[in-house]
């Protein structure tokens, strides 16, 4: 009886220790690679939304994190930041670029979304994303349906996916306001 209990404990402990040890090793080996992928992806996203940037540095203020893009000569070319919020099906997260004067967007890239495939998921397509390049942000961004946008602060919503388009606009407006208020007087 006692022997079984000891054996049980022994087996469980050793299984646990071996598993923990093996995983710790795998983690140590894999972590630098995973981290590198993450940083590369971040860098790529920043350069997409700030086309003039050749490098970036991270700025933090009031618990907000933004990436300031810099060109070859070290001059700031704009600010990139992550915007997150609720879409039609779940979270949408985007990288957004904004110029130095906080007047225009320099680009938008959807990083993560689980909108309806073939429909709301079109927010991650170039056709939709490119509309944000050069978009004026004051007054607030708005959207139009089934026709070409006329004003500098308008984008065209995706057909039959108004909610997803609306969600993107809403998230952007909220986050742009927050970022502008925090960083404009920098």
């Amino acid at each position, binding site marked *: 009886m006692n022997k079984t209990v000891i054996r049980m404990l022994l087996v469980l402990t050793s299984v646990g220790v071996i598993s923990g040890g093996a995983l710790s090793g795998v983690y140590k080996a894999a972590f630098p690679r995973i981290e590198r992928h993450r940083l590369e992806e971040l860098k790529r996203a920043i350069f997409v939304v700030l086309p003039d940037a050749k490098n970036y540095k991270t700025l933090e203020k009031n618990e907000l994190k933004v990436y300031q893009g810099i060109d070859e000569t070290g001059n700031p070319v704009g600010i990139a930041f992550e915007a997150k919020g609720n879409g*039609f099906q779940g979270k949408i997260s985007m990288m957004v670029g904004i110029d130095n004067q906080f007047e225009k967007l320099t680009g938008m890239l959807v990083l993560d979304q689980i909108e*309806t495939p*073939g*429909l709301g998921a079109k927010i991650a397509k170039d056709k939709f994303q490119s509309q944000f390049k050069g978009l004026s942000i004051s007054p607030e961004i708005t959207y139009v*349906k*089934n026709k070409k946008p006329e004003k500098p602060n308008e984008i065209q919503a995706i*057909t*039959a*996916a*108004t*909610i997803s388009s*609306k969600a993107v606009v809403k998230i952007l407006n909220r986050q742009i306001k927050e970022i502008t208020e925090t960083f404009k007087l920098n």
Partner: protein
Amino acid sequence: MGDMQFIISASPHIRSEESVPKIMYSVIIALIPAIISSIFIFGLKSLWLIVTCTVVSILTEYIFQKIRKKDVTITDGSAAIAGILLALTLPPGFPYPAAALGAIVAIALGKHIFGGLGYNIFNPALIGRAFLQAAFPVLITTWERPLTWLSQEVDAITIATPLAMMKFDMKFESLEKMLIGNIGGSLGETSAIALLLGAAFLLYKGYIQWRIPAGIFTSVVILGGTFWIIDPSKYPDPLFHILAGGMVIGAFFMATDMVTSPITYKGYWIFGIGIGILTIIIRLFGGLPEGVMYSILLMNAITPLINRYTKPRILGRK
């Protein structure tokens, strides 16, 4: 004992002398005003759409019954009704092949995999429509304008439905236009008058349960009205809810389907009230502008549970 066999028949257990085909053909007659008005409003292409759906539905039923070596019952009219109802929920100008796919799904998945008429859980026409909504979300929300001789504006080919206008643009369509049907929408949901005419005929004949539409309209008026009183600029009035979208066709022609609705008086009320509440929730707070179809399907799904808890208990059983 061994030779004794119980006669087991599935619902609908129709207790009167009315035969299934007789009721089915009456329903088709009741739908004729809506069919005519849809041709009147949108042109001949709506007739072709209805014909496509009906023919494909009947054909699918025939093929399924042949494969399963069952009696072919395409003349009872039930497949035709499913086809017509499906077509009436589609937007004018919907591509015919896609409509045919919807009809196949409606009859195959909505009806025959469950064993045919009497066994299906969901309303077949609505299954077809829900499938098409999920499969072709862009096509199915492209609403053509009513023919130009009805409408003065000619600048755009497409138009938003009153519900979509309410949802996305905060605009309310005028009630008279909705009553006549001079609005964007699917074939059979635009003209409320034509539908009400057919419904009155069926109610007069006693072929549909008045308690179900009564439950739907009561809950829509109370719940929709409550929101309207709270904020009339944001929420439409109850009459708008009733006239807009598929409310009329859904309440009288789809929710009342005998196979997929409950079997007790109490059940009828629960069923109807549930549809009304769900519709209002989806219309006012959901992502989609229209919720009648989904509300009916959801209530179809819980109909077995409603029956289970409203059935009078049999003596000696728990």
